[in-house]
C-alpha cells in the first residue's frame, strides 16, 4: 500500500462571471502522504480555500482528479460522496459563524455522529461527545452551553471536536486560528499537533499566515492567482525561497524580534484580476524581476532541486 493518502491532479475550478471566466483554481496538482501536513499559503483570492473545498466537493471542480485513498472522489455519486466525507473533514476559519447558534455543545458535536449513524442510543452518543470534549480540551460542564456563551478559542474547539467525531483520515483546516488571539492561537495549534500525533491525522493547512505554516507543515505550497507557484518542504522553502513572489511574501512578514533585520521586498500594485487571465506568468505585472522572457507562455511547475518545485521562467533559466 502506498503512503500517499491524497493525490490532486490538474484540479481546476472556473466560475462563470458576467465579465468572463474567473480562474479560481487553475491546474493545481499535489500529493500528501499519510500523517503529514501540507500548508497552502497565499493571499486573499489566490484560490487556497477553493482548493480545499473542491477536494471535499463542497464546490464541484470544473475538471481534474482528486484521488483519496485510491478512490477518485470526482467519480462518486452524491450518496457515495456523503459517505466519503466521513473520511475528510474541514475546520472553518470563523468559529462565530460556523456553529449553529441554536445548538448546544452536545447537539453540535453529536450531529455528525447521528448523521452518519455511527453510534446509536442517546446515552452512548453523550458518552462519545464527552470523550471528544475531553480530547479537544473542553470542560464537561460546558456540554449544555450555547455558542454565544463561549469565546472564540472554545468555539474553535467545538469545530475540531465535530470534525473528529467521525474519525476522519484527513482534516482540511481553513485558517483555523486566524480569528483568534495569539495566546489562544498557540493553544489551538498545539492541540492540532497533539491530535495529529495521537490519531495519525493528515492535515491540509490553509492559511495566509506564513509563520503559522512554517511551524506546522511538512510541505508548503504557495499559491498566487489560482496557480501553485512554489512547493517545497517547509524548511527548504524558508531557507531557499526561489519564486520572486515567495521571496516577497516572506519578507513582508513582520517579525517580533529586534535581532531579525531583513530587506523588505515591497511589491508594486495589487493582485490582478483572475478573470480570463492571459497565458503568461500571472505574477509578471507585480514582479520586481520580470524581463522579456516573462511575456512568453505561462511557466510550469518544474523540480529545481529534489522536491523543490518552482514555476518561474527566470528561476528555471538559473
Amino acid at each position: 500500500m502506498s503512503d500517499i493518502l491524497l493525490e490532486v491532479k490538474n484540479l481546476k475550478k472556473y466560475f462563470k462571471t458576467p465579465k468572463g471566466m474567473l480562474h479560481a483554481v487553475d491546474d493545481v496538482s499535489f500529493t500528501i502522504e499519510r500523517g503529514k501536513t501540507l500548508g497552502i499559503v497565499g493571499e486573499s483570492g489566490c484560490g487556497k480555500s477553493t482548493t480545499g473545498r473542491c477536494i471535499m466537493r463542497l464546490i464541484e471542480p470544473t475538471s481534474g482528479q482528486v484521488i483519496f485513498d485510491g478512490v477518485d472522489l470526482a467519480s462518486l455519486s452524491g450518496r457515495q460522496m456523503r459517505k466519503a466525507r466521513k473520511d475528510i473533514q474541514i475546520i472553518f476559519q470563523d468559529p462565530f459563524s460556523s456553529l449553529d447558534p441554536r445548538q448546544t455543545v452536545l447537539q453540535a458535536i453529536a450531529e455528525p455522529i447521528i448523521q452518519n449513524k455511527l453510534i446509536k442510543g442517546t446515552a452512548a452518543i453523550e458518552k462519545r461527545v464527552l470523550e471528544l470534549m475531553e480530547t479537544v480540551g473542553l470542560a464537561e460542564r460546558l456540554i449544555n452551553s450555547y455558542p454565544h456563551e463561549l469565546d472564540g478559542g472554545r468555539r474553535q474547539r467545538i469545530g475540531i471536536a465535530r470534525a473528529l467525531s467521525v474519525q476522519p483520515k484527513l482534516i482540511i483546516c481553513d485558517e483555523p486560528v486566524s480569528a483568534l488571539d495569539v495566546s489562544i492561537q498557540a493553544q489551538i495549534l498545539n492541540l492540532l499537533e497533539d491530535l495529529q500525533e495521537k490519531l495519525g491525522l493528515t492535515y491540509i493547512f490553509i492559511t495566509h499566515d506564513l509563520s503559522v505554516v512554517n511551524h506546522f507543515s511538512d510541505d508548503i505550497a504557495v499559491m498566487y492567482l489560482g496557480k501553485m507557484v512554489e512547493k517545497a518542504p517547509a524548511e527548504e522553502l524558508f531557507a531557499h525561497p526561489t519564486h520572486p513572489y515567495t521571496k516577497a511574501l516572506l519578507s513582508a512578514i513582520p517579525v517580533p524580534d529586534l535581532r531579525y533585520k531583513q530587506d523588505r521586498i515591497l511589491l508594486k500594485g495589487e493582485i490582478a484580476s483572475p478573470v480570463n487571465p492571459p497565458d503568461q506568468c500571472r505574477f509578471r505585472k507585480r514582479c520586481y524581476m520580470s524581463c522579456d522572457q516573462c511575456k512568453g507562455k505561462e511557466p510550469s511547475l518544474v523540480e529545481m532541486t529534489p522536491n523543490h518545485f518552482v514555476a518561474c521562467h527566470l528561476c528555471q533559466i538559473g
Partner: protein
Amino acid sequence: MENKNDLILEVDHLTVNYELEDETVEAVRDVSFQLGRGKTLGLVGETGAGKTTTALSILNLIPDPPGVIKGGTIKLDGDNVLDKTIKEMSRIRGKEVSMIFQDPMTSLNPVFTVGDQIAEAIMIHEKLDKKAAFEKAQEMLQIVGIPGERAAEYPHQFSGGMKQRVVIAIALACNPQLLIADEPTTALDVTIQAQVLDLMKELKKKYGMAMILITHDLGIIAETCDDVAVMYAGKIIERGSLEEVFNTARHPYTEGLFNSLPNIAERKERLKPIPGLMPDPTKLPKGCAFAPRCPYAKPSCIDVMPEERHFGGTHYCSCNAYDDESFHLEREDIVL
C-alpha cells in the same frame, strides 16, 4: 523627565466603565501614559484588553451609554479633552487628532465619492470652498499613492488596500498632530500590509506626527514603534521603549505573548501558549488580573494589586513577583 512641551498627549489615571443593566465592565482601569511629539507608541494586547476603549477616550468618543469615563484626565497638547464641549471636540477631531479604524470596508461611506469624503474633512476644518477642498483632496490621494483622477470614484471601485489608503488620506488631510491607528492593517493581506505600513511610516516622518498604533501583532510593533505599552484586562502592565520591552521583557504576560508566537527566525518544536483565558471583565480579581494564568503567581497575587516596578529608563511593569529581589523571568534577555 521629558519637558512638558515635548508631550503631545498625557493620559492620567483614566478609568472607563461600561455600565450595563446588571453588571459593570471595567474596560480601562487607571491607565496613565505619555506620548512625546513625533513619537509612535504601540499599544499591544488581546481582544478585550481595553486598547480601543483607551483610544476612543482620547477622542471623547466612548459610546455613552453604556460607556462612562469614571475619572482621569487626557491632556492633548496641554488641554484636557474631557472638559471640552461637544462643539469644541468636533473642532479637535480630524484637526488635532485623527483616527484610522480597522476595517476600511465599513469606515467609508458607499454613496459618496472618495474625493468628496476627503474634501468633507478639509471643509470642516479649513476655510476652503468646495472646489478648492476637492483639489486638496486630489493632492492627498496622490500623497497616499492613488492617482488624483480617481477622486471621482466610489469606495466599491477600490480594493481593500486602496480603501485603507483613502482612509489614511482623510485622516491626514488636516495635518493632525496625533494619529490613532486602530489595527490599521489587520484586514489586509501581508504584502498589502507591508505597503500600507511603509506609507504610514513615511508620512509620519514627513509630517512629524505622533502616532498611537493599536495592534495585537508584535511583529508590526517591532517595525513601527518607538515605545510599547502592553495592556491586559484594562491595565497597562508593562511599558518601555521598544528595545526595553522586546529585549528585556519583565512582565510574565509579556513573556507569555512572546512565547505564544510562532517565530519565523527560529522554528521551535512547540509553542508555549498562555494557559486559560482572559478574566471576565465584570468579575476581575482584587489583585493582579493575570494571576490566574500566571506561571509565577503566588497565592497572594490574587488579592494584592501589583505595584509599578521601574527598571531604569522609561521601563516599568506591574508585577508583585519582583518583591523577591532574585526574581527573574525564564525568557532570557536579548543582548544586542
